[in-house]
């Protein structure tokens, strides 16, 4: 069966790092691609490296000519591009985070429904075998009544960004990295938790450290995120009958009550899951499968994140505020 014609929109770092390696192993799909980037040289370079059919500079040029599109643009373009594609009957696989607000997600879901086109999201962590097994165990009651959930994810920001777009718009680590964790927590707990407390280190700009406390039923969830320092990068879920502990980058195993439990093949990396997603996207376009993660599936996480920003409090940072001692008595009142 021939591969569907798909557009790859946005030839930046995420395309290079994750999609290109997966597409190289899917020659049929790669050959049918229309590569899109406003920077023609970037688009042309990626077209050539994938053996793709065509490179263009505006995504509107693919409307009506492709069955599906991968939206790999900077975050703030996800919503307008996804909506326009869906309105023109193009199926979409969009990178996370899909949107900033729940109402934007609703608009995307509605448009997809009205036009009868699927809209999917790459929430890679949902695809990890460990994540899926943890969800199954929670749902089956293996931990008894859930009480606590802790998740820490942090490392110095090192994404090879070609522009400062990540630092504009006042949405930082919670929006970019946190969407993985918040989505996972919502998915594991089976709904949208209440926000008990949210604080971050934004001082008029884009936050780099965030702490969230959520509550759902009797479960207290604590999330700690950082773009500045390496955190424990691990999770712990405690119930009345047991405890799960796992590493954020251990994709295939975790510990259940202290004993290692394998959830799938070891030797898996991020690109493997992008490959799974691409296959699913092709099947969804052909009507052979349901989306692994649909736009509607991520609504809870987007809603939590947006509400967190609305309730933002400042983290206490005494080491920062100490600068005032330099001006305690005198002299540097004016510069000159």
């Amino acid at each position, binding site marked *: 069966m021939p591969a569907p014609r798909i557009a790859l929109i946005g030839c930046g770092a995420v395309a290079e790092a994750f999609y290109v390696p997966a597409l190289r192993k899917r020659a049929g799909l790669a050959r049918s691609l229309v590569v899109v980037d406003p920077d023609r040289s970037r688009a042309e370079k990626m077209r050539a490296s994938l053996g793709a059919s065509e490179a263009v500079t505006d995504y509107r040029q693919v409307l009506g000519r492709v069955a599906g599109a991968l939206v790999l643009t900077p975050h703030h373009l996800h919503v307008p591009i996804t909506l326009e594609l869906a309105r023109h009957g193009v199926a979409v696989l969009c990178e996370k985070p899909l949107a900033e607000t729940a109402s934007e997600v609703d608009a995307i879901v509605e448009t997809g429904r009205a036009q009868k086109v699927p809209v999917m999201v790459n929430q890679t962590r949902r695809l990890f075998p460990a994540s899926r097994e943890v969800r199954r165990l929670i749902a089956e009651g293996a931990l008894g009544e859930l009480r606590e959930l802790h998740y820490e994810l942090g490392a110095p920001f*090192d994404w090879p960004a070609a522009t400062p777009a990540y630092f504009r718009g006042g949405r930082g680590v919670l929006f970019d990295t946190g969407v993985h964790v918040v989505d996972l927590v919502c998915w594991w707990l089976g709904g949208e938790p209440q926000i008990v407390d949210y604080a971050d280190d934004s*001082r008029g*700009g*884009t936050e780099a450290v965030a702490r969230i406390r959520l509550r759902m039923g009797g479960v207290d969830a604590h999330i700690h995120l950082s773009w500045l320092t390496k955190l424990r990068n691990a999770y712990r879920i405690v119930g009345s009958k047991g405890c799960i502990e796992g590493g954020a*980058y251990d994709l295939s195993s975790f510990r259940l009550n202290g004993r290692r439990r394998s959830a799938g093949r070891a030797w898996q990396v991020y690109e493997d899951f992008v490959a799974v997603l691409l296959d699913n996207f092709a099947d969804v376009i052909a009507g052979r499968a349901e989306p692994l993660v649909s736009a509607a599936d991520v609504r809870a996480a987007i809603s939590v994140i947006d509400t967190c920003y609305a309730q933002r409090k400042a983290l206490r940072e005494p080491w920062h505020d100490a600068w005032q001692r330099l*001006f305690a008595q005198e002299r*540097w009142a004016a510069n000159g």
Partner: protein
Amino acid sequence: MASRILVTGAGGFIGARLVEVLHCAGGWQVVAGVRRWSTAARVARFGVELAQCDIRNAEQVARALSGVTHLVHCAVTGDDRATIVEGTRVLMEGALQAGVRKVVHLSTVDVYGRPEGEVLEDRAYAVTGRVYGDSKIEAEQAVRAMAARGLPVTILRPTLVHGPFGATFTVAYAQRLQAAPWLVPAAAAQGTCNLVYVDDLIGAILAALEARTAPGEAFNINGPERPSWNEYFQALNGALGFAPLVYAEPAQARFAQKAMEPVRAVAKATLKRLKPQIMALYQRSELARRFMKAAEARVRNTPNANELEAFGRRVSFSSAKAARLLGYQPRFPMSEALPLTAAWLRASGFVLAP
């Protein structure tokens, strides 16, 4: 109208802190110069203007200096001579062309080599064969040549800068103290630890921006105390709330240090040649991950020969000239600084709460 100030190296330990303080203090229009956008996460919290400024790139430098009245040069990249020397040359030439009113160039006391006794600013440069210190000498010479052409530049030579976000003299020692065994015998660490808290250095930079001094004048910037290294280790250990240090026997420490030297050399060479393969293995195998983490911690926690030499050396870098001509006044002794550092180390996940 606010003065417009460019800080190079704004993604680094000192540059980022300077951006924060200038922004919060007000009166400055701050431009945070970064080589790579990814390093801007810390300063982006303040909503300051960001500029891509690889100091080796004359075009980027000229763009970043547009409309700038003041410049503080904090950018360095480890042992990269090209950046330290040629980058400084490009930046200072750009500042001269742009008519910048005042420049502060951050150097280091490493330009004195490995001195003993009291060190004043008239001590001659000493080339040691270490890339960082030797390159900083060349950079100072380039700055002074530009000062001779009329650039109003002041050179600051900070000692060992510690505090939140400080990798070398803060995070590394905190992690070693936590890891145990502590492999620095008390008797081997009686040399002088010339510590200056990062905010004191920021105070010195602010003073230098304001002061009228001869172009190319250099100033040592040290903290208010001269503890021994051992006193610093104990004070940091205490601030972190750890149990009192249990010292290794000198023979055990010597053996650990000597045994680790070949391991360190092999690891460095292997990583240099096979980094992508090693990273792939790290990502794919839990067993490999555990082994590498354990090996890295062991290497990190064992002092090397250079460190042991420094721990024993008695030297004091005088800041008297900076006090006299800049009005520099350090305000953060260890008793004030280390509780702030400890709070940051705990909040950032580097050490666990006691």
